[in-house]
């Protein structure tokens, strides 16, 4: 008996990832996560649940935090994707959130950390002055088993405070 596999037609994907433009052929069933990890080798984005419930795979599409395991690569055709690898500047300068996560000992095993950084980055783009309650609600989609979340939340609130101070200072200077 012949056993054959169904042929799958690849399709063209145009996408910008971490500032670089790609035009590649991908299978229609390729998730954004698999595309990033396997086709582009960007393994900083993790996968832990496989069913859209843990947030370890969070990336930023345009300005929105998106769980990349739950979206097809072709669905983000023409969009701009930022992963954890695209946050720090090329000379190695971290973002204020990354620095705060380090200072507060926010993560332990680190497997959920990239997803948390991406979620928090998008959140603070959207909300300038969130309360701790807002932060807890917004970060609800990002599971962590090591830390009990507390140091993450503290670190984010610290960044909120620092950014506010910085803004006030700038306003004064003007």
């Amino acid at each position: 008996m012949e056993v054959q596999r169904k042929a799958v037609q690849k399709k063209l994907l145009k996408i910008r990832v971490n500032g670089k433009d790609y035009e590649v052929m991908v299978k229609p069933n390729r998730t954004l996560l698999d595309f990033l990890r396997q086709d582009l080798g960007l393994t900083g984005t993790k996968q832990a649940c496989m069913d859209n419930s843990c947030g370890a795979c969070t990336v930023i599409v345009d300005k929105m935090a998106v769980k990349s395991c739950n979206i097809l690569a072709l669905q983000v055709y023409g969009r701009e994707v930022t992963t954890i690898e695209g946050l720090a500047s090329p000379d190695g300068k971290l973002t204020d959130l990354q620095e705060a996560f380090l200072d507060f000992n926010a993560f332990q095993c680190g497997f959920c950390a990239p997803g948390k950084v991406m979620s928090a980055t998008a959140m603070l783009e959207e909300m300038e002055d969130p309360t701790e309650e807002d932060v807890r609600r917004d970060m609800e989609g990002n599971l962590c088993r090591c830390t009990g979340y507390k140091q993450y939340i503290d670190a984010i609130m610290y960044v909120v405070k620092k950014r506010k101070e910085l803004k006030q200072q700038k306003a004064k200077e003007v």
Partner: protein
Amino acid sequence: MSEFSIVGKHVRRKDGLLKITGQAKYTFDVVLPGMLHGKLLRSPLPHAKILNIDTSKAAKLPGVELILTGKDTKGIRYGFVDTPNHPAEERPIAEEKVRFIGETVAAVFADDIDIAEEALDLIDVDYDPLPAVFDPEEAMKDGAPQIHDTITRDTSCAWEDWGVARKTHSYTPMNNVAARVFIGYGDIDKGFAEADYIREDRFKIPATSHMAMEPHCIVASWNPFEERLDVWLNHMAFELKRYWLHKTLGIPISKIVVHHAYIGGAFGGKAPVFDFEIIAGFATKRICKPVKIVLTREEVFSSCRNSHRFDITIKTGVKKDGTIVAQHTKVIVDAGAYKGSAPVAMFFCHAVGDPCLDRKNVRHEGVAVYTNKNFNFARRGHGSPQMRFATDSHYDQICEDLGIDPVEFLLKNLRKKGDVLPNGDRLNSYGLPECIRRVAEEIGWKEKRGKQRNMNRGVGVGINGMFSGSAYWPFSCAAILKLEHDGKVALLHGDCEFGQGAETSYSQIVAEVLGLSLEDVTYVRGNSDVWPTNYSNFLSGGIFVGGGAAYNAAIDLREKIVKVASEILRVMPEEIELKEGKAVSKKDPRRSCTFAEIKRYNIQKHMGDPLIGFGYKKAVPEIEFYPSLSKGTGRFTDAYGFAAAAAEVEVDKDTGRTKVLKIVVAHDCGREINPGTVVGQMYSQAVQGMGDALFEEIMDESGRIMNPNLIDYEIPRAFDVPEIVVIDCSDPDPNGPFGAKEAGECARAAVISAIANAIYDATGVRVNRLPVTPERMLNLLRAKDKDQ
């Protein structure tokens, strides 16, 4: 002011930069050229004979390279417990029958995962269903389905390999009994006769998931020319996995190389060797191509180890004033299809409680029973969370019955620093009394206990003790410290990093001893070719044993550096101090030389000796092998860590929902080497304990797990986190590096008890079964209303 320059300071993690930029490599991320992907076919039935497996269609699927069934791996046996009396019975692939839903029946290796998954669908397995049994008490009855025939080992058992002078013999589980423990001291009959009040309670605790974020995975690559097996895997002590790969695959142990990879959480759930790991090793050796297996979250739930299901009956006799005079505990562990670590859990649940309170006359009986369900392993406390929930709830009820304050009760029954336990362990450090006092104070015990029921609020307290490594052979650790040409040092240490902070805290210890900064210490992320012996990551032995080895290596290097410096500076060794990468004369600080100069001088003047420090440490120096699990005799650990927790909750009587308002954890970890890490461990345990108390339960029906995903199996999320206060009550242990001992496992159990007892205080309802879901709470509240 601290007497130390770097120990005790909150510092950034050594692995932090890699992890926060996505550069840290986990096994999950490892890709090798030409790598095949493996998928496992799992049993859909809880108990069935395998009549035939037809893999012919799957084998013809283009891209499929290898299919394995139980015929290929027949006879391979392994298990966490592999002793002369209890030989291992786990097997990588089911042979003549399957014993639980999720057991591996076949494995496919193909060019990509999609092909491997398609191939699974093309395998035809012909099963003959057998009667199955899911309840341990049913399983122990005469006439119940027998899950195992005689268990025989064709080879030596692990303990024989490790030097125990006893031959393995076959074991026939009668009435599905996998193992028993019977531990006792004092005279319980006499104790109960002296008691003014005796109470008995029964508690049930379900299986829960470790739920480490990184799913279990392995990459294995066999090099046929060098006959070497390279592996990247999730582990908690590389030596344990390496031993079992060697034992099951017949590869010399020195030819198995475990490579460094970060581990995405463990909590006990990644310590034992798994079927898929042996299958991966077997497959790569067969086809000489690298293979990778990543389990799905569902497979982690249904085919990897979960925590132990306990059924606990506890009877305690007390004097009128609350002094405990006797205690009799009986535990039934629903082991599942294979024994896993059930024999150990039954022992542990007694042994880690014993240092807490003096119960005087004690009998502890345990039985582990085979059932047709997935089997279990240690989860952060290994039996102690289950036992502490039962014991502390039971004490709380005794206090209620006798009108005694629970905190006073605990303080009255404490052991004393310096006490020698019945098994010979000595409490050289004992911060528990202080922990209890401080959590009571912080939660507002005196003002709140028993006074807030009108507001549906309550407070509760729980305690726990935990070992700092034990004598699981060869439970020891060694470390090598190289002095580099620039005067900095490199630490060769085999401890893996699964979040606990080993890289950072060991580096702090080394830096402190040598007068260096944290940046001057490189934690070498090598592989098992260069790592000295290491068994210390699990059994809570990290800082005490692993950190102890690093400390000893630093002391060794320090002595060598001082000796050379004394020669260079022409001052007596005791007049030299090490600071800022230099050896300095205490009398005349102008006389100094750098470590770089010391290294150069020593190579030139002393036969090329580059100055290498070496250190090692054993968990319990006096004993050669493990204490007797079944009798509970023999030294267990050299230092116990302690914790107490208090919680305040509010119960919504309309919905049954419990809201935790505040958790206080006080811990005695000897010394906080890195306070940021230790506090992180406590937050973690507070939140995990809250999950255990309120919502975590693996539900099964006829052997099938009903909630094998993170939607139906809830773990705490950011929004659930209450106010948490952590209090350091460390009592430095004379045998720990800078006094440090266990910190990572102890508190979880105390938090579970504290929440359960707070629920009682809030409602007057005693919870005998975890978790306290809103549904259970409502039923209990209704039952109570009916009674009144």
